[in-house]
């Protein structure tokens, strides 16, 4: 019960002069209830990789096992509907997928497509609206009157309403203000911890990777070049820089402190909280050292 990429390759427009290889031999395993962050430079194949996960794109070679589903190059579209329900996908700028007259109808749209009765779906929509932090008064309004951030919430509610077991987020906080970002990321983290959702997050925000992810995959030019825990990935800043990736600010600051004689017995701190905790632990010794 997990996500398992087995030597997955994908080529766009295979067999034409315009063919471009977007994924080359990617093998990766995400355990059940895992939290994977995929990072990499723009155009490194992150979005292509996650579109394999609900078979919007099918591998041109290799195999992908997601819980009870196996996707091979031969898989036909007919068998994919249960998979689409199992794997919820929040695309980049998901607000562009809203279309119904009312917000309630739009959120209920997904569940109804998967066979839920309209009345149940409508009730569920109200529940989801609350989950993403909008009150019931929004239910009957048109999605097009909302602000960009609120539209984003409605779109995400529409995906969560399908009760997916695996949630895929393609830069869910791009273009949101800091508070909105914080709220959304906290919501996903809560779903992960309380409801056991497996989360796959594509992002350029290293802070989010350091704070929430349990596993990180680094993509470059369609290849998986490194994977491991955030600790392992961020421990080598020179390598990250060579791959045009940043280190979380707290880790960067911690490394500058290292150069001034600090050490981190509990491992390099990646978040401000972890950094503060380790500094606090070292604080009483400071008097003895007569720095």
């Amino acid at each position, binding site marked *: 019960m997990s996500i398992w990429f087995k030597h997955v390759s994908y080529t766009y427009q295979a067999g034409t002069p315009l063919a471009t290889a977007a994924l080359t031999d990617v093998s990766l395993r995400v355990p059940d209830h895992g939290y994977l962050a995929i990072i990499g430079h723009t155009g490194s194949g992150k979005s292509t990789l996650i579109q394999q996960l609900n078979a*919007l794109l099918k591998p041109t070679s290799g195999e992908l096992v997601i819980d009870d589903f196996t996707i091979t190059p031969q898989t036909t579209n007919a068998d994919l509907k249960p998979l689409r329900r199992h794997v919820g996908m929040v695309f*980049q700028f*998901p607000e562009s997928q*809203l*279309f119904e007259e009312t917000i309630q109808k739009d959120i209920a749209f997904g569940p109804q*497509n998967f066979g839920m009765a309209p009345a149940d779906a409508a009730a569920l929509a109200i529940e989801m609206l609350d989950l993403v932090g909008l009150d019931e008064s929004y239910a009957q309004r048109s999605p*097009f009157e909302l602000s960009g951030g609120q539209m984003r919430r409605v779109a995400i509610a529409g995906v969560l309403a399908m009760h997916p077991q695996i949630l895929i987020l393609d830069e869910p906080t791009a273009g949101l203000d800091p508070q909105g970002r914080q709220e959304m990321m906290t919501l996903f983290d809560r779903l992960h911890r309380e409801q056991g959702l497996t989360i796959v997050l594509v992002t350029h925000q290293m802070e989010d990777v350091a704070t929430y992810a349990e596993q990180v995959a680094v993509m470059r030019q369609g290849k998986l070049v490194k994977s491991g825990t955030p600790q392992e990935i961020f421990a080598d800043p020179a390598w990250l820089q060579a791959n045009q990736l940043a280190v979380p600010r707290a880790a960067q600051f911690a490394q500058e402190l290292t150069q001034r004689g600090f050490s981190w017995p509990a491992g390099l701190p990646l978040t401000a909280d972890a950094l503060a905790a380790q500094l606090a632990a070292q604080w009483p010794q400071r008097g003895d050292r007569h720095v």
Partner: protein
Amino acid sequence: MSKFIFGRYLPLSSVVHRLDPRNKLLLSFCYIILVFLANSWVSYLILIAMTLGAIWASKIRLGFFLRGIRPLIWLIIFTVILQLLFSPTGGHVYWHWAFINITQFGVINAGYIFIRFLLIIMMSTLLTLSTQPLDIATGLASLMKPLRWVKVPVDTLAMMLSIALRFVPTLMDEAQKIMNAQRARGVDFGEGGLIKQAKSLIPLMVPLFMSAFNRAEDLSTAMEARGYQDSEHRSQYRILTWQRRDTVTWLIFGVGLILILISRRW
């Protein structure tokens, strides 16, 4: 959709790619007239030679063309069969039933129609494969210039055309993205009966129109902010130049024209 090569651009470096777009548009237009002028097997052989020559000069593989024509083959076959079955009587009658006659005249005409279709599709595919959309727009605008004298707003049309062409791939991407997003929410595109299929298009069409409206608003604001007032008295960044190779294409075309006029059955 990805099999459909008509209307796409293939970036290569060849003589055909470097020709003046105005020249290519005019040539393609005159070529179509030429296709309809030809009416004997010899004249069609000359045309086929010209077409293959043009494709060879463009360095694009012939197989790529043939594969691109495949989606249109049913249209061609349909027309050819209609021509075959319902042409007026003339020449030797091979088969006759009720109002259907297969005659010598019909068979020859069907053959002609098949070749005409093929040649026109191949040449216009060559035009789009070897010319960037923006170059086509600039070329068309430049060719439309004389229409100014009859009060046609040529510059405005040219601006609209180049914006439209610029946004075709953007809107295609957007459409693909929205389709994927709605698929992920359980929409089945292209499945079920006619009404179900039409209904499944609503979650695609509404967001696409909304996004086009928003885009237009943003774009017009950005254009005004950059000093765009009206389309008159604008200078040009892309200046097209007629070169010797453009003249040479017309010499070749002229030779072809004369040969076809000679071999034509009057």
